[in-house]
Structure formats: structure tokens, C-alpha cells
């Protein structure tokens, strides 16, 4: 195995899906491949062809400084999950949480916000649509791109203007979305050919932001 190949195993970007004890953490199984495909499609970032699933309470999570968490059901973190999340964020990790219900009155939204507030010690705050997240690769001058589910009026029948975040200094530690990117990006990457505009471009911004900020 050459030096370059070994480097890939250690330092290469690996998409990480967070498994938590409560809820349906695996409700968007196609998102990882789709995001990985987009990262490879648009950037030269070294990326592993498959993602990993890591329990939130596991120290292995610290090996993946960008992680993705989604679900429909109530989120209740255990004590060790809470501790790990806090440590993960403070050390420099970034957790992207997406409400698969796309419903601000839904239990995922309420329980996840409650748990994140408890773990981080402060409620999430709206992220300005001028934040570097929206311009670090693709340009999204209007802020977070709308999803088909928002436009279709499903869930809470709202088009959410902002994402929410917990900032550590000026860095995003936790990014929370009510826009249901999990549904938006939940298709096999080969089907991108059916789209006139690739709707996973924002995922590339997430990865580039996490890798450079």
C-alpha cells in the first residue's frame, strides 16, 4: 500500500451518520452516498466512497469531525451521548442535524432542540443568511436553499428562512435544519441525471465549510 493510499484512510473525509439510542437515526440511508457523490463531483477533496455509522456515545465519533444526524421520532440523548456531543463540538467537530419531519410542531424538532439545548447549555440561534456557510463554495445569496418538501407544503407547510446553529466562537458547532434535506437528498446519486439543478450542492458547502473553518 502506497503512502498516498494510507493517507486516505487516516485523513480523508468520511461521511459520518450519527446513531443515537432513541428514534430512527437511519431514516435517510441514501443521503451519505449522495453527499459523497457531490463532494467528489464538485471538489478535489479526498473522500471515502462510503460513509460510516457511529454511535453518538462512542469515542469513535471524534474521528469524524463532520457528522450528520436525522430522524422522525423523539430524540432523547443518554448522559454519555450528551457528554460526547459536548466534547465533540468543543474539540472542533460540527454536527449537522436535520429534521426529517420538516415540521416545527413535530416531536423530532421539539425533542431534538430540547436535547441540544441541554447538551450545549444554550438554545440554538438563527444563522444569518449571509454566513460564510452559504458562500464558502457554491453561492447561496438567499441563504439555505429551499427543499421540495417545503415547496410542496408538506410537514409544517412553511418555507424556513434560516437554519439554526450553535456557535463555538464564530465557528458552527451544531447546524440545525427544519428544511428536511434528508428527504431532499435521499435518492440514489445516479438519479442526479434527472435533475436540471443538482439539489445537493448545499451539502458540498457543508463539507467545505467543515473542512476549512
Amino acid at each position, binding site marked *: 500500500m502506497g*503512502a498516498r493510499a*494510507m*493517507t486516505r484512510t*487516516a*485523513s*480523508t*473525509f468520511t461521511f459520518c451518520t450519527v446513531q443515537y439510542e432513541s428514534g430512527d437515526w437511519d431514516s435517510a440511508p441514501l443521503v451519505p452516498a449522495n453527499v459523497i457523490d457531490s463532494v467528489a463531483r*464538485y*471538489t*478535489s*477533496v*479526498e473522500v471515502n466512497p462510503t460513509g460510516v455509522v457511529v454511535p453518538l456515545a462512542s*469515542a469513535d465519533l*471524534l*474521528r469524524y*469531525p463532520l457528522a450528520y444526524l436525522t430522524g422522525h421520532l423523539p430524540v432523547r440523548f443518554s448522559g454519555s451521548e450528551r457528554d460526547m456531543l459536548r466534547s465533540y463540538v*468543543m*474539540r*472542533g*467537530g460540527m454536527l449537522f442535524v436535520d429534521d426529517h419531519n420538516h415540521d416545527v410542531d413535530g416531536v423530532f424538532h421539539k425533542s431534538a432542540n430540547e436535547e441540544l439545548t441541554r447538551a450545549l447549555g444554550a438554545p440554538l440561534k438563527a444563522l444569518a443568511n449571509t454566513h460564510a456557510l452559504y458562500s*464558502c*463554495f457554491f453561492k447561496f445569496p438567499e441563504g439555505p436553499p429551499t427543499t421540495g418538501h417545503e415547496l410542496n407544503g408538506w410537514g409544517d407547510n412553511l418555507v424556513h428562512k434560516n437554519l439554526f446553529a450553535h456557535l463555538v466562537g464564530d465557528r458552527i458547532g451544531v447546524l440545525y435544519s427544519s428544511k428536511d434535506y434528508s428527504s431532499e437528498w435521499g435518492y440514489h446519486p445516479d438519479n442526479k441525471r434527472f435533475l436540471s439543478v443538482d439539489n445537493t450542492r448545499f451539502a458540498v458547502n457543508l463539507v*467545505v465549510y*467543515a*473542512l*476549512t*473553518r
Partner: protein
Amino acid sequence: MMERALRAVGVVSVAVLVVQAWRGEGARAPMVVVPSRSAVQLLASLPLSSDTLAIATDTTLDARTTAWLAARRDAGAPARWGSARGIAPTAVALEPSLDPGGGVRALVAAPVASTVRLADSAGVIDSAVIRTSGASFAIATPVGAAVAGVSGTSARARAPLVRAPRSVIVLARAGWDAKFIVAALEERGWPVEARIIVRPDTAVVQGAPARFDTARVAVVVALDASAAPQAAAIGAFVRSGGGLVLGAEASGNAAFAELRAGANGVRQAPLAIAVSAASPRRALPLVPIDQLVAGAVALERRDDLVAVAARRVGAGRVLQVGFEDSWRWRMTGPDGAREAHRRWWASLVASASPDALSEATQTVRSAVSTWDAPLARMVADLGAPDPQATIPTSSGEPAGTSAWWWGVLALTALLGEWASRRLRGAP
């Protein structure tokens, strides 16, 4: 028989006392016992005369005192000095860590196997047993002067002033290592300029990372081959006094062949699975540095392999780092790993940084310098120590103690002889 023996002892003791008194009288010179470092007041009270002044001290005289004595000697009042216990050849120098995080390094030279005790006005800072020629102490800003004490000898120095650090340029591809190295340097206070490549025609840029100017930039950190197109400009920057930290992948690139401290060896897997607080870098993969170029110095080894090496190129310095994926140290290490990773990277950059002593330092007038070597200074100002000009305190006895003992012995012997005679009825 016993009476004769006692008489003999008494006579011999008295004879010794007489000889001691005669010899002492013959060698007598004005002797001043200096009990403390600063004795200007005491010495100034002595009359100027052509008699040689004998200074007996078991402590190191401060610079003012030795300067006063040197001036006195030049004015025609010579002095010689001595120390019964001996003054340990000791030197202490304080230098800034060249790191925005502040801190000072105290470099102490002292005899092998001696114990150095470093203190400041706030109390004892640390101590160490000298293994080779000395020790270095990394400390926060000392309160007042730092004092290195070695078996009664103390060297005193103050922390130097430094000017604000110049920038660090980081050149790398987008990846966790680049992200966390930039973060570590910024969190430590280094002004960082960066170019992080995300695709061949696109980069995330901070500052002006293409302007390699020693007036503005202290160090360039080239982590990987993405810096190769700038290798020539970086080389010129280093030769004109800049610093360069080469990551393993960058040093393996032919563009940096003239700058690196050695060739890349075969990549080694981590020696430990988990990052430990004691030896965190054992859990990192290592591209060892082989075939060090002439003048290169190995700064860190892992087992027999060189992990970090440095060399001078022109007026600048190059530091080659063989460790990879140091971000794992910060993310997966034990509590405090984030700070440790930050300090380590900051120290690497500081180590390659050009000197940062400010001009203001040159004009500062202070009774205490940034370095002190008491024995060397005393020899330079007063000459070599004179064995005669000593307080006989080698065994911890006060002056005149041996004469007192001889006197007691004589008296005891003579009394014993007298008592023996009276007991047996003799006159």
C-alpha cells in the same frame, strides 16, 4: 605513661595553636566576609588603600558588587576573592518563546548531577536534576526576575520583551489536518494567512497567502504538495530570513528537495491506538526523516526514527515534521489534548520563526539582564578565586573553629594529666 601521653597531646596542641597563629598573622590581609549577593554598601564603607582586599563569600555577588570591586581594583585597591564551599559554574538565560501565547524559556547551565531550582518573586517554579549540560524550563511570564539556584549559587535574569508576532502562512489542500492546524495557530494567537485548495481552480483564502515577505510573514507552513508551485518563492523567503515548516507530504515533493532537512523514509503506522496524554504523538502515523542533510538537527525522535528535524537555509530556518494527521491528537486525545495540540503546533512554528526580539529590548536599562552567569562574571571582574581568601566553612564550621578545638584539646589533656597526678598523690 598516660600522664606523659596527655602532656604530649597538650604540648602538641599548644604548638599547633602557636603555628596557626604565626601563619595566620603572616598571611593576614584585610578580609571582608560577604554574606549576601549585594554588598556594595558594605564594601563602600571600607577605606581605599593599596592593601589587597580579600573577599570571602559563599554566595554569588551581583553584577553591581563585582562591578564596584572591579572599579576599586582599577583605582588602585586590588581585591582577591575566594569561596570555601565553591561557587557552582551556573548560567541562566531567559528568552521569549516567540509564541503569541507568551511564556518564557529559561535555559540553565549547571554541573552534571546538580539540582537546579528555578524560582521567581512569586515562589518556586520548578526544579530539575541536570543530566547533561543543563536544562530548559518552559514557564509562563515570571513575576519579577527568575532565579536559578544551584547548591548555593544563584543566577538571576529577567524576561525579555518581544514584539508582536508576524503572520504565518498555511498552504494546504482542504482536509482535517489543515483545518485543525490553522485553528490551533489562530487559537494560540498567531495571525494566520491561508490558502486551502478545495478544487484545482478554487481555494478558500485568508489574507494574502501569496506574498512571502519577511517583513510581514514569519513562517510558511507547507503541509502538502499543493504548495509545490510556490516552492521557489518560499525558498527565497527562507533564505532571506523566513521560517518554513514542511509537512511530510510537502517534504516528499521534489520541489522542496533543496529546503528539507532530510529525505522522507517509509511511512510508519502509529505505535499506539489511542492518543495518550504522556506521549500523544505515538498515536500518529510518521514519515520518518532519513538522511539528514549536513547541518540538520534532529529535534524529536520516535524510537530510533527522526520525527522532527531542523536546519538553517540561508538566513532562515526550516523545520521538517514527519508526523501526519495530528488533528486526531486534538479530536481524539484525552482532556487537554486540544490545548496540547495547539501548544505543540505553536511551538513548531515558533521554533522556525526568526528572532523576535524587539528594538525596544536593546534600549531597556535594567539592573537585571536577560542572562546571568555569576561565576564567569566574578572571574571576569575579580580574577580567579584565591584559595587563601576563604572562610573556612567547608564543613559548615564557623571561622576559627579548628583553633578552638585545638585549645579545648590542649586544656583537656593538661587538666587530665594534672588530675592524674593529684589522684595518685604526686605534686
